[in-house]
């Protein structure tokens, strides 16, 4: 599997660290209730098909990426800098 880093270009999976579903861009408020934090920390959609997850390009530029890919076919559609995705969410 190769991921297209927007900064470095396409690189193989070994240059990246996997964080998991891209929920970290949408943290609950610090005073949100226990269920909201449980949901954020532990519960996952875990989709069979398209997913968006967070990868860290530790073997390259050190950027956090949101990768849009398919968990059934391992097809990778695109990768964006997490800060850009986060910027749009505001």
């Amino acid at each position, binding site marked *: 599997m*190769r991921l297209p880093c927007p*900064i*470095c*270009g*396409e*690189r*193989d999976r*070994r*240059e990246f660290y996997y964080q998991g579903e891209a929920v970290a861009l949408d943290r609950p408020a610090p005073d949100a209730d226990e269920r909201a934090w449980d949901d954020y920390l532990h519960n996952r959609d875990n989709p069979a098909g398209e997913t968006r997850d967070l990868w860290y390009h530790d*073997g*390259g*530029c*050190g*950027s956090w990426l949101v990768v849009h890919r398919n968990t059934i076919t391992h097809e990778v559609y695109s990768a964006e800098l997490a800060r850009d995705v986060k910027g749009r969410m505001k």
Partner: protein
Amino acid sequence: MSNAVSALNGASSNGYVTVAERGLVGMVTLRGDLASKELNDAVKSVTGQEVPAQRAIVHGDMSVAWMSPDELLIVCDHAKADQVVSDLGAALKGVHHMAVNVSDARAVFAITGEKTREVLAKMAPADVHPDRFGMGEIRRTRLSQVPAAFWMVSETEATVVCFRSVAEYVFKLMSVNSVAGSEVDAF
């Protein structure tokens, strides 16, 4: 002070390219806001170079390489590295940054030969085709199992930088990947 010694004492191997450790090379890591005027001015005054664009390296008395969106690598004489750090510190006084002499934490190799690109391609996941990786560019990537960076010095020579702790691994890796008879004529 003890004598500085490079990682492999200038080891070399001759396969279908030549791999040689380059000996002592000065290296300074500079981290900060690469877009800021202060940092650009400081780099210019200390190294004589402009801050390179993304994935680029510029050469002169010193070379300055882009390493990540907030990191540069300055390559200079080994004896000058401490001076570069203190000059940067003076030029960036009061500006958030970090400049560190990493010379002795790195190993530097030269690969020379017609098939230099091919040997890089065997080890790194980055695309090193001449159309995609030209002169004046740097790639920060991996060589097989370990992190490394490299740039083309000419069409037949590349400079490879890795951590000193894996110098022997990288040297053997490059040597094995350039054993005569293992050419694949990739480019």
